[in-house]
């Protein structure tokens, strides 16, 4: 939760993003690829680029993920606005994910 400055994927947005998230994945793992796709679809449909998402490859930064308290992959952390939330899984349950992220569809 401390390092937010190196976003891998950051859609351009001048104002404060409506949602800041971090997705922990294992590169090329089926569930991780699914999660990225599922999240991207939700964001595209409901957030209209008004969000900030950092994707962390656990294989590349394992100790960071460990420090962040990540257990399983894929794992999505909602960092702001509060309340913070954590979602594990390939995010295939669209309504569940939206509820957890506080997105009204």
């Amino acid at each position, binding site marked *: 939760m401390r390092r937010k400055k190196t976003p891998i994927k950051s859609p351009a947005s001048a104002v404060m993003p409506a949602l800041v998230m971090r997705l922990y994945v294992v590169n090329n793992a089926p569930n991780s690829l699914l999660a990225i796709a599922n999240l991207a679809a939700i964001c595209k449909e409901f957030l209209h680029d008004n969000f900030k998402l950092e994707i962390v490859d656990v294989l590349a930064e394992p100790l960071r993920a460990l420090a962040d308290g990540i*257990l399983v992959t894929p794992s999505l952390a909602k960092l702001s606005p509060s309340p913070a*939330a954590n979602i594990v899984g390939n995010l295939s*349950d669209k309504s569940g994910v939206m509820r957890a992220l506080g997105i009204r569809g």
Partner: protein
Amino acid sequence: MKVTKTAALQQLPSKMATGIQGFDELSHGGLTLNRTSLLLGGPGSGKTVFALQTLINAARRRDEPGIFVAFEETTRQIIANAACFNWGLPALARNKLFFLEAHLSPEVVQSGAFDLSGMLAMLKAKKQEMGARWIVFDGIDVLLTLLQNPIAEMREIYRIRDWLADNEMNAIVTAKIEDGISETVNYGFMQFMMDCVIRLSRRLEHGVSLHRIQITKYRGSDFVAGEYPVSFGSSGMEVGAPEPSEIKHTASTERISAGFERLDTMLGGGLFRGSSTLITGVPGTSKTTLAGKFAEAACRRGERTLFVSFDEGAEPIMRNLASVGIQFKPHVKSGLLRMYSARTESIGAEDHLIKLKALIREHRPRCLVIDPLSAIAKAGGLVAARAVANRIIYMAKDEKVTVMITAISEGDDPQTEATELQISTVADTWIHLSYIVRSGERNRALTIIKSRGTWHSNQVRELVLSEAGPMLADVYTAGGEVLMGTLRWEKEVEESARKTQRRADVDHKQRELQFVEADTRARIKALELDLQRQRAELASYSRDNEARTLSSSEREHELCKMRSADPERRAGLTPANAKPKGGNGSGHSGNGKKARKEVRDAP
């Protein structure tokens, strides 16, 4: 199924000792290097303790760092739970151990499938960072149930196994099973995959919680099959290791005192070193005193001794024994004697065995007293207690410890008393104490029922307790019975009176005989004197007679002379006596012949 331990170790040098007392014997060396072992067990069966203890032992003894992945508990909980063992976990946790809190909080939303590849990647990084050699996945079932998919469960298990194989770590995976039921359904595949499967169980028997361990599978290794008891002590988990089925005890011919001299005499010179002695008797027959005396004698010889009591605390025992002259205090103070008291109601018999083993290891006694062993039958069932009683005796023999065990018997009949724990057949020496009630008294009697390999007295003896300690009274028999108590005392008094009387009688007789002898001597003296007198008389008489004869012939001669009788005639009449007078002596014989002729011619 079984090979000797040394052979197993030679065959399989690649085992890592867990350091769990007893388990390494059971598994012939521990867990296989760089392989995964599965621990299955119900809640509270000791899975976490087993895994954590193995990890800690590796870190402490071999300096091998380890990772503990806790799916169920928090690190704080684990450290708090481990605080009841003397592992020094907090310090280790800082340096050698890494705890990963791997339980998903309830707030975490689950959406779709996930896997452990990320976690394994993190663990790999951590492993490389700290050089970990061990890893524990504790409570993997908790994580797997989140997958909500048997296929996914299997896939993740395979993932873990492959990861472990790649990373060359000694791994322990624990999973909870509800006793007996779903385990084959849920984790059957897990058992196939793992190299070693260990089952832990906990069950209640007669209100006592009994922990058990069993190795159900060990790929590429010999192991001891069967369920073994587990107990938890200050150093953690201990397994009641299997005893070798072959009895290989050495037999010593050295004799040591059973406590006091008269008992040793009854035993043909004492107990054999390393032998086992059973003392049976109803309550109050001074079994403890006898055992205490044995312990004290051992301490006096300077031998380390362990006194285990299952019915009293150390303090009351020492006080009670001191009242009969058995002093434990100085020996306890010097460290020779170790007192251990335990309750038997709440702990299973096998826990006591494990505890005893630990005590023997710790104190290294040469003599051991267990008083009373029969108390272990109080909890956890008689069958277990019997097995444990036998094992205690065998264990003592293995350790070459001379053991004295007491057992409370229900009746006074040694035949029935033996059955409770059935240890009398295993014990080398069996001393039975009983009460003999006679003439309004209750006295303690000691009998040696058996003593292997030695002569022993067959007599029933009275055991007397005094301030000087236990003692066997002198034997007095009357009407085929050994007298005891007052009867013995009376007999003793009577006996001593009779002795005095007999001595007086003998003296009297002696004096009488002396008198007779003196009398006889006196009489002999008198007779001798008489004899002398008679001889003297006889001598004087014959002298007189001679003198008288001589004087009469001289007188005759004088008379002849005076009468001037014919000398020729006189000469002719008494030729032999006639002494020639005058100058014609030389021609006397010639003259005589002539004279005799003359006489003959003359009439």
